[in-house]
């Protein structure tokens, strides 16, 4: 009997005009989003490749170790094809050098705001917004429609347990929609593999996880639509209820979470933090300068009463030591500044993480948000991308600066140029360390090391579980609702 109802539902869906129309639209949408995603990814990958080459070329053209500056670039993840996430919002690159902290700059949208006007159209968006709407369209009148047309009474005049009926109906609708959705999805995957998007085995695994997530999310809506139809009397009432539910879940709840978190957890802005750091830097150098003056005064005092020749000799004897003292002092200040900057950065990140945690916990009351967050997590385009990138670039920066430091010492002292105005010796300008190009062969290059797949999937797994809970709860609601449904 279960299968009879399932088969009838399947047939009912596949034969309907509604299905033909929506199937066409959804197929076109899915394929389009994937084609668009591929084109976006390949453009991004091309841009990345050129940028890497340019950065390499700049390194090669650098002429002194002091002024050398590398560029660390964040490559696009192939799963951007399916989930753009915040990939286009956060910076693509950071300068890496001794005097600047890591800062991600040049996001795609900031570079070319034209692409930000309508945003991107990715598979995740299609599933989250359009497919959920379609799921509702096929389920809102599951019970109310049959009640109005009278077939519900006819069906229930048979020895058919209500639970069997509703579960079979849900299964039938679910299977019918899902089977038809899998066609464009598989086609899309075929296009992806043919289009030459470089996908590793672990990428395919992530794509698999993404599809499981989409499926779960879709199931939530199918079950939700049916649940609504068991708690309403007429199709138009169920449709309005579904639409309100949809607007609340997809459009409002996720944002409310973020808004609330913004109000509850205060986080300083980057501009504020930067200015704070600048202030500290300035003060530190100020102190260093004062110390410098002080030391020079002492050195002068030590030479008190010397003749001009004696002075010269004393100076020549001590100059190297003095220079080293100054250099050490300078380095100490720089380290102090770096440490302070990192501390501020760390503090900012912690506060922001706390805010994000709260926001997303609240947002997870909505299955749409759960699905979106999980997809972004799987595609490595979630909010953590920024921190992850910055942290890995900071690690690279310390390697890089250590290497440059070493090289600098090997080539002897500071680089750049020096202007000396001495009341006795007069003016002199020198740029002693200029010597063509540098040997950068063993200079460390930035390596993007993405979060391991296992961890990604484990994190997203919880969201998947949560989606499953939502689906089951909706189904339970549908069963309860139908159990007490007045079929007259």
């Amino acid at each position, binding site marked *: 009997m279960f299968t009879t109802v399932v088969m009838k539902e399947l*047939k009912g869906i596949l034969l309907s005009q509604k299905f033909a129309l929506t199937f066409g639209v959804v197929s076109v949408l899915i394929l389009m989003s994937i084609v668009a995603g591929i084109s976006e990814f390949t453009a991004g990958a091309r841009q990345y490749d050129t940028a890497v080459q340019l950065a390499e070329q700049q390194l090669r053209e650098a002429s002194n170790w002091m002024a050398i500056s590398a560029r660390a670039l964040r490559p696009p993840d192939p799963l951007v094809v399916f989930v753009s996430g915040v990939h286009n919002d956060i910076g693509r690159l950071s300068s890496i050098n001794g005097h600047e902290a890591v800062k991600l700059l040049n996001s795609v949208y900031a570079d070319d705001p034209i692409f930000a006007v309508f945003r991107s159209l990715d598979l995740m968006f299609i599933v989250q917004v359009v497919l959920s709407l379609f799921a509702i369209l096929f389920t809102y009148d599951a019970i109310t429609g049959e009640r109005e047309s009278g077939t519900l009474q006819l069906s229930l005049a048979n*020895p058919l*347990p209500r639970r069997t009926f509703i579960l079979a109906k849900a299964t039938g609708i679910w299977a019918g929609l899902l089977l038809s959705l899998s066609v464009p999805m598989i086609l899309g995957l075929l296009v992806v593999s043919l289009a030459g998007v470089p996908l590793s085995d672990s990428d395919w695994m992530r794509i698999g996880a993404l599809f499981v997530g989409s499926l779960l999310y879709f199931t939530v809506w199918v079950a939700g639509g049916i649940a609504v139809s068991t708690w309403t009397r007429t199709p138009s009432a169920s449709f309005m209820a579904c639409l309100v539910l949809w607007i609340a879940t997809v459009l409002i709840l996720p944002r409310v979470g973020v808004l609330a978190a913004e109000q509850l957890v205060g986080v300083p802005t980057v501009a504020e933090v930067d200015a704070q750091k600048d202030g500290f830097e300035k003060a530190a150098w100020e102190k260093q300068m004062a110390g410098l003056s002080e030391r020079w005064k002492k050195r002068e005092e030590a030479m008190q009463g010397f003749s001009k020749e004696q002075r010269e000799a004393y100076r020549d004897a001590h100059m190297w030591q003095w220079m080293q003292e100054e250099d050490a002092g300078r380095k100490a200040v720089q380290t102090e500044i770096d440490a302070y900057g990192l501390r501020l950065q760390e503090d900012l990140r912690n506060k922001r993480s706390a805010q994000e945690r709260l926001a997303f916990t609240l947002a997870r009351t909505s299955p749409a948000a759960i699905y979106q967050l999980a997809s972004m997590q799987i595609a490595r385009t979630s909010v953590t991308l920024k921190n992850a990138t910055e942290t890995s670039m900071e690690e690279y920066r310390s390697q890089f600066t250590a290497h440059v430091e070493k090289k600098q010492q090997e080539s002897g002292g500071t680089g750049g140029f020096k202007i000396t105005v001495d009341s006795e010796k007069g003016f002199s300008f020198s740029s002693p360390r200029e010597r063509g190009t540098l040997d950068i062969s063993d200079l460390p290059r930035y390596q993007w090391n993405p979060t391991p797949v296992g961890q990604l999937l484990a994190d997203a797994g919880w969201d998947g579980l949560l989606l499953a809970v939502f689906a089951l709860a909706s189904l339970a609601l549908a069963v309860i609702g139908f159990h007490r449904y*007045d079929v007259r």
Partner: protein
Amino acid sequence: MSQPTFEAVNLTKRYEDGVLALDHVSFEVHPGQIYAMLGANGAGKTTTINIFLNFLEPTEGEARINGVCTHTDPLAAKAQIAYVSENVMLYPAFTAMQNLEYFTRLGGRDHHTKDEYHRVLERVGLQREAHDKRLRGFSKGMRQKCGLAIAILKDAPAIVLDEPTSGLDPQAGYEFTQLLTALRDEGKAILMSTHDIFRAREIASTVGILNRGRLVMQRSAAELGGADLEQLYLEHIAGHAA
């Protein structure tokens, strides 16, 4: 006497809004009998049928099908009852055959062959060429025939009909009543509600008149004899309205 197929015992239904729809109604329908319920709109005919189908639970009393109480064991009761509604609505996207097959299977009969479906559809008078057409374009008479075909295929001892002939043209109405009498002669017990006094008189074994939830008159065909049913009906309705 044998066990009644339909049995209403002190059937009472009071809705949540306090309206008393049925007030201690009792009657029996035996195999080979047609029981016709007459009454104005809102008299309680459909409520009675809804209780027999377990779409409603009685506030008091019991409805039984072959001794099985409809609200304590609805599934066992429903296995023995077939239902034809006032306006049979089937799935418009399905053909007559598909509808028939679906509902017959729901009724727990999945051993029928295609030929049997065709035979039954022909028996109820549906032209062969209509069998594989979608229900969307069917007239009310054709849909009613499909509904009866479903009931026949379910082969239940009890058949409930809710104003089955309303809105049918005379020819279709005649054919429909012919089929009902044939089913009665096969030993089915039939409970029907109707506004059609003429037809009730013609085929009913027993006629019951409901007014405001009460069974105000119940007479067998023999008891009615040559009495004018229309006169009786108006008297009973008027008598109790006053």
